[in-house]
């Protein structure tokens, strides 16, 4: 059991990385990997929200299956995600104002970050159990965060080099560095 969970966890980080293998969560990936600090802030917020929403969505999907209304799961999932984000924001504002100041601005953006919905959809497609789902969600979010932090680090160094052609500046060069990173991570294929 423990070994199985470890396999789910490690494979969701390295072999099936959300950002570099499935190419998900790219909009914030491109726009936020320009500086290391914002990348870390967004990453932490994503880990928190993804794990929480997967844990909430799993029992709700069971309920939909039991009532034979699983056709509605897109609508239900996206409402759950939006509501969770709103709730987390309110709780943080009330009880942890310091935390809210640190990554509060990233929370509203998360609702439209496709990785949150994607993790819940993969959970349904792969028919994971509850514990598997939570571990998979946590691992995927960690993998995504790792990828965005590494790319941000590369881009902070690239700024010092300079001399990038005009049209390639910004998103173009971020994508090239992400591509090289994706090549590197392909080396893990078959490990788990």
């Amino acid at each position, binding site marked *: 059991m423990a070994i199985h969970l470890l396999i789910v966890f490690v494979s969701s980080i390295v072999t099936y990385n959300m950002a570099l293998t499935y190419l998900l969560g790219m909009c914030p990936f491109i726009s936020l990997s320009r500086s290391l600090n914002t990348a870390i802030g967004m990453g932490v917020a994503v880990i928190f929200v993804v794990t929480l929403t997967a844990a909430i969505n799993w029992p709700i999907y069971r309920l939909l299956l039991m009532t034979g209304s699983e056709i509605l799961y897109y609508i239900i999932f996206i409402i759950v995600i939006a509501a969770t984000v709103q709730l987390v924001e309110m709780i943080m504002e009330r009880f942890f104002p310091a935390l809210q100041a640190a990554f509060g601005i990233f929370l509203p953006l998360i609702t439209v970050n*496709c990785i949150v919905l994607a993790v819940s959809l993969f959970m349904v497609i792969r028919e994971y159990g509850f514990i598997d789902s939570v571990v998979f969600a946590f691992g995927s979010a960690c993998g995504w965060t790792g990828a965005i932090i590494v790319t941000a680090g590369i881009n902070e160094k690239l700024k010092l080099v300079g001399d990038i052609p005009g049209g390639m500046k910004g998103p173009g060069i971020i994508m090239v560095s992400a591509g090289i990173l994706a090549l590197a991570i392909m080396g893990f294929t078959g490990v788990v």
Partner: protein
Amino acid sequence: MGSQGLLKSRTAKTILDGIWRDHPVFSMLLGICSALAVSNRVANAIAMGASLTFVLVSTAIIISSLRKMIPNRIRMITYMITIASFVIIVDRFLKAFFPGISESIGPYVGLIITNCIVMGRAEAFFIQNNPYYSVLDALSNGFAYTYTLVIISVVREILGFGTLLGVNVIPAAWLDSWWQNWVVMAMAPGAFFLLAVFIWISRTLAKIETKDMG
């Protein structure tokens, strides 16, 4: 005559903005996830482009006709529920009529819900304009997204699999002598590199430059 000309030019401007000047992918950088992920085969790209265009146009009709009735505070959730309903229709349609494609683009159809093109256009355009211009805007954005996907997927499918729409296009003589399928092109890194090149070329042509970020 004057107002006729104005109408004409506004129609033309809406279309041109959508397909070139404010191109959703290379200029606004929206909808990158699916542009990268489903562009490994031309058939998938066309299916994805058509699905997105359908969702975009339907959302445009609903949101722009109801724009005076939607309370400002809950407009985001209204967009989401509208989009999600149409995505369910597309998903069921693909499952019923094109099971093969539905299988291979899998969760990415559901992810149209969080595709920022639809949300972005709803917030920036549909909520402020009447149905006529909204539908024009939706069509031109959908078209821009589709042709981007098709361009990228044509290159990726030929280089990665040696086929186009599933048909072999590499001459047999090449296959024997020097041609090797470039597997990386069909996988994630190839998508990144090709989209980077696409952005580079089209940004240079459209003279868009990102200022150095501080």
